[in-house]
């Protein structure tokens, strides 16, 4: 009997996992004992970290997009289709294109994050973002011609992808305007929902003095409730109001509605055991990356490491052995501190981050990794 592993989502987690399984289970796949199918609702793989550089005119959105068919091992069956329903009792999926249904023995949900700016009235009309291809391109149009006024970076949604990116954006903007001799004419304000500048206290403690040194104003306990696009103001749950000339916001995020409808977790994040990544509410279902509600950042490195854990667990289960691989919360992030310097953090469930002193070497390391990311997607790095 053939064991069928179905992965839903062709982002970092889903793609790395598919290629890892293709390598790990090559003999079983070649003999017909195992099938690995990756279902994605489009033909391309998208590498989102490129978007941070788009508003500054340094990268194009197309730099972060490649055909999944070019990245996946030939042993993986790629199905470009949209899953419309998950039935974890019957172990089957329904999809838009068919053939229907897709039966599975093991299901991995890697459906990722979607943006929900509509949850904040006025945000879509009054704000910009760099958390989508179209958003980053639209923000570029505004930022490249922005020479004076008040630039506000507001973290509205949480959890959100890449928790370092809002800090990176204001550090880069500060440096970028300085280099161009415009900083005196541009005020920069960073807002954050809680009483410090980052969710992680160690990163907050590191970032706050840098902001003070560089004259980046900070508003904490700032939770945007509405945006008035005409008046160009943000009103908060806490009762304050802030005027802006250009608003770059981190919109609220949601996971996939499929997850909610299948009863696997609220807002599309699958409730999982944070070590095994197994879904709490269903058998033979895993989640990874942004989709897995583990409490660690929604970051590419997390999806990458979790994919390795899920691959090892699935291989063990398929071979009838106890699955012993576990995820320890490992997270890596390069954090840009300007246009020519970056820091680096590494942490896990037990060990907090300790940001490295910013350097040009770390900045180039980040850019080099962004170039070599495609080897990660292929399962080679």
């Amino acid at each position, binding site marked *: 009997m053939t064991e069928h592993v179905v992965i839903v989502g062709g982002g970092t987690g889903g793609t790395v996992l598919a290629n890892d399984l293709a390598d790990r289970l090559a003999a079983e796949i070649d003999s017909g004992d195992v099938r690995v199918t990756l279902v994605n609702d489009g033909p391309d793989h998208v590498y989102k970290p490129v978007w941070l550089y788009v508003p500054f005119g340094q990268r194009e959105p197309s730099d972060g997009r490649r055909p999944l068919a070019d990245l996946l091992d030939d042993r993986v069956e790629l199905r470009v289709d949209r899953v419309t329903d998950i039935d974890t009792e019957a172990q089957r999926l329904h999809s838009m294109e068919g053939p229907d249904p897709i039966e599975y023995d093991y299901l991995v949900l890697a459906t990722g994050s979607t943006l929900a700016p509509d949850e904040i009235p006025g945000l879509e009309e009054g704000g910009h973002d760099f958390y989508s291809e179209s958003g980053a391109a639209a923000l570029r149009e505004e930022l490249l011609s922005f020479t004076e006024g008040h630039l506000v970076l507001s973290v509205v949604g949480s*959890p959100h992808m890449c928790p370092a990116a809002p800090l990176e954006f204001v550090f880069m903007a500060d440096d970028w305007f300085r280099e161009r001799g415009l900083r005196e004419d541009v005020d920069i304000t960073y807002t954050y929902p*809680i*009483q410090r500048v980052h*969710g*992680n206290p160690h990163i907050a403690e590191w970032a706050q003095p840098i902001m003070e040194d560089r004259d980046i104003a900070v508003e904490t306990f700032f939770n945007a409730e509405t945006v008035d696009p005409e008046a160009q103001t943000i009103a908060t*749950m806490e009762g304050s109001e802030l005027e802006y000339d250009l608003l770059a916001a981190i919109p609220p995020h949601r996971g996939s509605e499929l997850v909610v409808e299948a009863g696997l977790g609220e807002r599309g994040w699958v409730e999982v055991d944070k070590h095994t990544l197994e879904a709490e509410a269903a058998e033979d279902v895993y989640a990874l990356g942004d989709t897995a509600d583990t*409490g660690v*950042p929604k970051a590419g490195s997390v999806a990458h490491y979790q994919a390795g854990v899920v691959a090892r667990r699935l291989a063990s289960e398929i071979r009838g052995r106890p699955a012993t691989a576990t995820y320890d919360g490992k997270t890596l992030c390069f954090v840009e501190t300007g246009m020519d310097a970056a820091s680096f953090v590494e942490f896990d*469930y037990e060990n907090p981050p300790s940001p490295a002193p910013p350097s040009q070497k770390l900045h180039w390391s980040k850019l080099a990794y962004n170039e070599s990311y495609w080897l990660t997607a292929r399962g080679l790095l």
Partner: protein
Amino acid sequence: MTETTIEADATVDARGAACPGPLMDLIGKIRTVDSGSVVCLLSDNEQSLTDVPEWAEEAGNDLLAVEESDEYHEFYVEKA
């Protein structure tokens, strides 16, 4: 731990949440409920004992009760 009679309209289980942390989870839930609703936050993060009251006061919400135990705390917050 004392027993409370407060009935929560929604519960946020943030036990084990490291980053961005329980307060962010609470704020996210408060956003989705109606004024007058009570949200119960479960947190095993000691920092919540200062974070949550500070934010509740800042945002004008009522912190109705804090139930403390060895393993975790329950915070009952009523949305203004």
